[in-house]
C-alpha cells in the first residue's frame, strides 16, 4: 500500500496524535541510550512510556494505558530511581568510548539489520487468517470488561501461574537483598562499613546526581576536608 492511501484512511486528529506520540517515543528512547547520567536516562524512559500509553489509548487499549502509566512510570521507573539514588551511580559514563575496538560500529550494524528485518516483516504479510480465540476486541461492553472476562476464563491458568511467578520474584528479591552473614555479629561491622553507603570520591554522594561528577567530587572533597579538619582539631586538642 502506498503512504497517501494509508494516511487517507486515518482521520486528521488520529494521524496527528500518532505522529506526536511517535516523536515523543523515539526522542525518549534516544534519550535513554544517549544520556550520560542514569537519572536523565530514567526520565527519558518515562517520556517513552507515556508516549506508548498514548498509543495504547489510540488503539482502544484504555485499561492497558492506565496500567502502563501506573505500573511502569509509577512503580518500575521509581524503583530504578531508588536504586540509582541508593547506589550513588551518578558517576558519568563516557558513552562514546569503546570497550572493544569497533564495538559501537558492530552494534549499529546489528541494530540496522534488526530494524530492516522487522520493518520488512511489518510491511509484508503477517496474518495467518486464523480466527480469534480470546474474543473480539470490538462489540458491546467496555475494554476492561472484555479484558477481564478473557483473563478470568480463557487465560485463567496462566493468570494463576503468574501469581506463582510474583511470589518467586518477591522471595528471590528478599534472598538477594539479604546481607551474607547477617546472623554472625563479627561479619556485620566491616560489611556495613564497606558495602552499603560508599564514601569513595568516585562513587559520589547519594542524591547528588544532577550536577554530575563535579559536584560529586566536590562533595567527596568536602567530606575529606571535614574529616581532615576534625583530625587536625583533635590533634590540636591533644597537643594542647
Amino acid at each position, binding site marked *: 500500500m502506498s503512504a497517501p492511501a494509508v494516511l487517507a484512511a*486515518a482521520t486528521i486528529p488520529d494521524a496527528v496524535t500518532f505522529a506526536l506520540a511517535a516523536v515523543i517515543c523515539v526522542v525518549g528512547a534516544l534519550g535513554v541510550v544517549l544520556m550520560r547520567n542514569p537519572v536523565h536516562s530514567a526520565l527519558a524512559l518515562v517520556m517513552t512510556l507515556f508516549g506508548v500509553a498514548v498509543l495504547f489509548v489510540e488503539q482502544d487499549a484504555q485499561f*492497558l494505558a492506565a496500567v502502563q502509566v501506573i505500573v511502569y512510570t509509577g512503580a518500575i521507573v521509581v524503583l530504578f530511581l531508588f536504586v540509582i539514588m541508593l*547506589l550513588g551511580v551518578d558517576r558519568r559514563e563516557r558513552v562514546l568510548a569503546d*570497550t572493544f575496538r569497533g564495538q559501537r560500529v558492530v552494534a549499529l550494524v546489528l541494530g540496522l539489520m534488526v530494524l530492516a528485518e522487522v520493518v520488512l516483516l511489518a510491511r509484508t504479510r503477517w*496474518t495467518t487468517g486464523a480466527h480469534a480465540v480470546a474474543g473480539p476486541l470490538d462489540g458491546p461492553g467496555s475494554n476492561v470488561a472484555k479484558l477481564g472476562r478473557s483473563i478470568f476464563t480463557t*487465560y485463567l491458568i496462566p493468570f494463576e501461574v*503468574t501469581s506463582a511467578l510474583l511470589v518467586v520474584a518477591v522471595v528471590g528479591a528478599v534472598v538477594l537483598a539479604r546481607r551474607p552473614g547477617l546472623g554472625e555479629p563479627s561479619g556485620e561491622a566491616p560489611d556495613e562499613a564497606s558495602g552499603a553507603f560508599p564514601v569513595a570520591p568516585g562513587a559520589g554522594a547519594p542524591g547528588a546526581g544532577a550536577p554530575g561528577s563535579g559536584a560529586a567530587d566536590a562533595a567527596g572533597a568536602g567530606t575529606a576536608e571535614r574529616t581532615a579538619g576534625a583530625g587536625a582539631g583533635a590533634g590540636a586538642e591533644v597537643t594542647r
Partner: protein
Amino acid sequence: MSVHASWYLTLAALLFTIGAVGLLVRRNVLVMFMCIELMLNAANLTFVTFARALNDIGGQVAVFFVLVVAAAEVVVGLGIIVAIFRRKVGATADDAHLLKG
C-alpha cells in the same frame, strides 16, 4: 479510523532497535536494564497493534502478562544489581566477570 497498523509496527520496530543498540553500546548496568524495558515496550506496542488489527482481545491479554513478567524481572534484576554493587563500588557491566576463569 486510526492510523494503519503498519505504521505502529514500524514505530515498534524502531523502538526495539534503539533499545537493542543501547543494550549493546552502554556499559552502565542500570541503563542496560532500561534498554530492556524499552524493548519490552516495543513488543507491547506490537501486541496491542495486532489486537486491533486482528480484532482479538488476546493481544491485550498478552500485554497484561508481559507487564507482570516485566515487573518481576525488574525486581529480581535490581536485586542482583544491588548485590553486585555491594561488593564492587561503581561497577560497570565489564567489571562483573566473576565467572571468568
